[in-house]
């Protein structure tokens, strides 16, 4: 009879998401219904009547399923908000980078101001946008599992993974932007075009070091 109850419960929950929560709820329900059935039969009820009254006592499972689904809605709303924030921060930072290079060139070329002043302005703007990016990606909340399915676990893992990759990528691109800016700046102000290209080799080394650090971090986990 337990099997008959089980298939009835499976049928009732056919539309529910296949999650650990739902699975556990079904198990709980089946155990309790079976015990009720056994009690009714023990009291002398005919098996068929007992089965029918057990099934009738389940009631409307829609409210149960709805309750289990509610969490998903909440999470997707939060994710949407997070996504918008990321887009805003990234576009703001990129804008500031462009502005910083523009400031560097215009202060030196248009206003004929001191090179050091131009460099300070450039570093301040670039530094601020870098901090903005790093802070955002560090403080971004972990992916919140909508439920306990394998798919969700995979999503969480993937997000962890790409989060790190994103940080690595943004660091590297920041580093290269800085390298180009410093190269142009030093070359123009000091006129050492013959040697200044060496900075690109240094840049490549720093690039590799950043990647290595991220890889090592990944391996340790």
């Amino acid at each position, binding site marked *: 009879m337990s099997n008959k109850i089980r298939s009835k419960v499976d049928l009732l929950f056919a539309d529910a998401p296949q999650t650990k929560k739902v699975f*556990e*709820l079904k*198990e*709980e*329900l*089946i*155990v*309790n*219904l*079976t*015990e*009720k059935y056994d*009690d009714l039969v023990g009291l002398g009820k005919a098996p068929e009547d007992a089965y029918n009254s057990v099934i009738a*006592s*389940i*009631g*409307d*499972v*829609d*409210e*149960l399923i709805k*309750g*289990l689904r509610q969490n998903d809605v909440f999470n997707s709303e939060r994710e949407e908000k997070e996504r918008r924030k990321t887009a805003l921060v990234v576009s703001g930072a990129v804008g500031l980078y462009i502005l910083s290079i523009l400031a560097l060139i215009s202060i030196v070329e248009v206003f004929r101001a001191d090179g050091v002043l131009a460099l300070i302005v450039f570093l301040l703007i670039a530094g601020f946008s870098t901090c903005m990016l790093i802070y955002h990606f560090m403080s971004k909340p972990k992916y919140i599992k909508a439920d306990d399915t394998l798919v969700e676990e995979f999503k969480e893992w993937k997000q962890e993974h790409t989060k790190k990759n994103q940080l690595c990528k943004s660091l590297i691109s920041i580093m290269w932007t800085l390298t180009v800016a410093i190269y142009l700046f030093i070359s123009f102000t000091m006129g050492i075009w013959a040697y200044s290209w060496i900075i690109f080799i240094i840049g490549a080394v720093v690039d590799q070091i950043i990647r290595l650090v991220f890889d090592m971090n990944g391996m340790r986990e």
Partner: protein
Amino acid sequence: MSITSDLIRGHTETIILGQLIAKDSYGYEINKAIQEKTDNQYELKEATLYSAFRRLEQAGFILSYWGDETTGARRRYYSITPLGKEAYRQNKQDWERAKELIDRLI
């Protein structure tokens, strides 16, 4: 019976908390106790009972754990938390007050 159900429905959570104050219990046992205490006049639908469990759990009023039955299927037990006891006490107080007022009015 249906009118009675409507009147009682708002108190489902408190009724469950009241059963759990005495001891940890599981779905069917709680429902059986409710049936016995009301001389078979009232019984919760399974769906109502488990929806209430989920709500109470989310609110932190109860905790659940799987029993360690050696024979047969494992039951899911619920136990009341201090927060749940406080909520029960508060709800009971509210009910006493409402009952007194309604008695005077109808």
